[in-house]
């Protein structure tokens, strides 16, 4: 209620309008107000620097030719990228990560989008409980999901198969797909489906030709999320990867324990670029605002 009221207030009502409304008596307070505003911006910009500087540093470090951290940087080279892409263990890990992320994305998208449809449209008894269940992996520390799955696999004596890892990742990424798909389903005009039905389309045809295309952006955004979350996933992988087919974050982590050279910077830049691509893709597909809800 409140939010709609404040949003519909004309923008002129705020700051500028305020300044106009304040008369002579308050004029003395304008100067401190300006300082306050400057301080507010300065603090916020400092915080933004804190947030973004580490990422910038990684990029600088990856491009700097010296084998140790040097600041300010002495030059620009791509030697660490060359080393990263030539290193067999990194490339193998990158392959494993991409494979796991691709499989996870497919599973999480199919499972999550179906579950979201069932929750929004199936008239399920206890739909709220089902929804809470589907979102619960986000609520629990991932390290516990990893531990629990590891113990289950040990007890069932199944070893450490790839499907075990993909199942763990799928569990962690389904919540994103459920959430993004539900967001679209909630804004869905039901009359479109009714119109299709009234015009003689079968329920199946209505589903494939009306419902599915309309929820596609939400499903797509969920899939993108699933991919990046799986690609960067650490705690579950820590417990579930089998030796010899570790994912990239695990290999980077093991490397970081002993070494701190530019190769890891190059590897990081590759994964940062991927994250940026995802943010831009999300913004393009459905807009970022939908996903800010935690």
């Amino acid at each position: 209620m409140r939010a709609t009221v404040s949003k519909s207030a004309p923008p002129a009502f705020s700051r500028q309008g305020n300044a106009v409304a304040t008369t002579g008596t308050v004029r003395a307070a304008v100067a401190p107000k300006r300082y306050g505003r400057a301080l507010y911006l300065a603090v916020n910009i400092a915080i933004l620097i804190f947030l973004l500087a580490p990422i910038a540093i990684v990029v600088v470090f990856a491009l700097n030719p010296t084998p140790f951290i040097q600041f300010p940087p002495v030059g620009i080279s791509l030697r660490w990228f060359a080393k990263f892409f030539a290193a067999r263990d990194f490339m193998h890990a990158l392959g494993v990560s991409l494979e796991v992320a691709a499989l996870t994305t497919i599973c999480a998208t199919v499972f999550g989008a179906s579950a979201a449809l069932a929750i929004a449209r199936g008239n399920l008894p206890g739909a709220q409980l089902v929804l809470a269940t589907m979102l619960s992996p986000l609520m629990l520390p991932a390290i516990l999901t990893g531990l629990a799955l590891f113990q289950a696999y040990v007890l069932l004596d199944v070893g450490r198969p790839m499907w075990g890892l993909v199942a763990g990742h799928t569990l962690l990424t389904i919540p994103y797909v459920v959430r993004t798909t539900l967001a679209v389903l909630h804004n869905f005009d039901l009359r479109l489906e009714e119109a299709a039905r009234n015009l003689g389309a079968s329920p199946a045809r209505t589903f494939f030709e009306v419902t599915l295309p309309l929820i596609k952006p939400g499903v797509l955004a969920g899939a993108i999320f699933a991919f990046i979350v799986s690609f960067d996933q650490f705690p579950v992988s820590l417990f579930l990867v089998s030796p010899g087919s570790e994912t990239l974050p695990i290999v980077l982590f093991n490397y970081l324990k002993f070494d701190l050279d530019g190769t890891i910077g190059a590897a990081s830049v590759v994964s940062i670029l991927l994250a940026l691509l995802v943010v831009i893709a999300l913004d393009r597909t459905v807009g970022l605002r939908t996903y800010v809800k935690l």
Partner: protein
Amino acid sequence: MSSAARINGLAFLVLPSALLFALFFFLPIGLMAVMSLLTGNPVVAPHVDFTARHYARIINDPYYLEVIWTTIRIGLWTTLIALVIGYPLAHWMARIKSRAGHALLLMAVLTPMLTGIVVRTFAWMALLSDKGVVNQTLISSGLISQPLKLMYNETGIIIGLVHIYVPFMVLTLTGVIGRIDERLEQAAENLGASPARAFLEVTLPLSLPGILAGSLLVFALSISAYVTPILLGGFQIMTLPILIYQQISANFNIGFAAALGMVLLVVSLVLVIAYNRVLGLVSGQHGLQ
């Protein structure tokens, strides 16, 4: 009403996920709870009994209590600093008028969030090590002669964790601050309050639920972190998640690891339920939606 009678075909689409969750989530967590109460692995060992000894070990050994306390202490500092840093940014995000400005701020918050945790921890290692960016800059500018001890201690862990979890604080707070009617603040100012006083007496109290929810979330996340405490702590500092993994990887003590896991599980559940309750109260609906 008889909603059960109106179940339609789409309802069955929940089955694949339900099955996956039953087999790969609830069953394993149930098994973990059982394992934490057993004397051994029932698949391998022939005689297995119920026991509370794993839990007794946690409670009776000062070492494990110290580990739990370290975890909590790191979590509390991380939460406090994330709140102090996150609040101004959240306020700006909630109040900024320009759409492009809002989008840019959102990107600035989401990009670190979507960058892998190992990568971000590496970035802090490059910044905070003895020969890292911060120390090199301070030494070359003549401000210090000896490098500051910024990592391989709790300070380093807290700095890294704050950076990783501050976006969660910002996003939670932005949601709550955005709901506060800006005109309340303006009314206070028009009645003669300074902007600072209007903020302290109007906005801040109204955003308390957001502060509480964001703090619960960041605390829950930081006590279950593994990568950052182990790398920025340089294997010197033991926290609960590190201890859990060590029990599996080095000692292969599944029962004890399960008991430690149950401790973390219960604490996290309590925190997350509280988080949802608080946000649910603010938004007038269920917090999970």
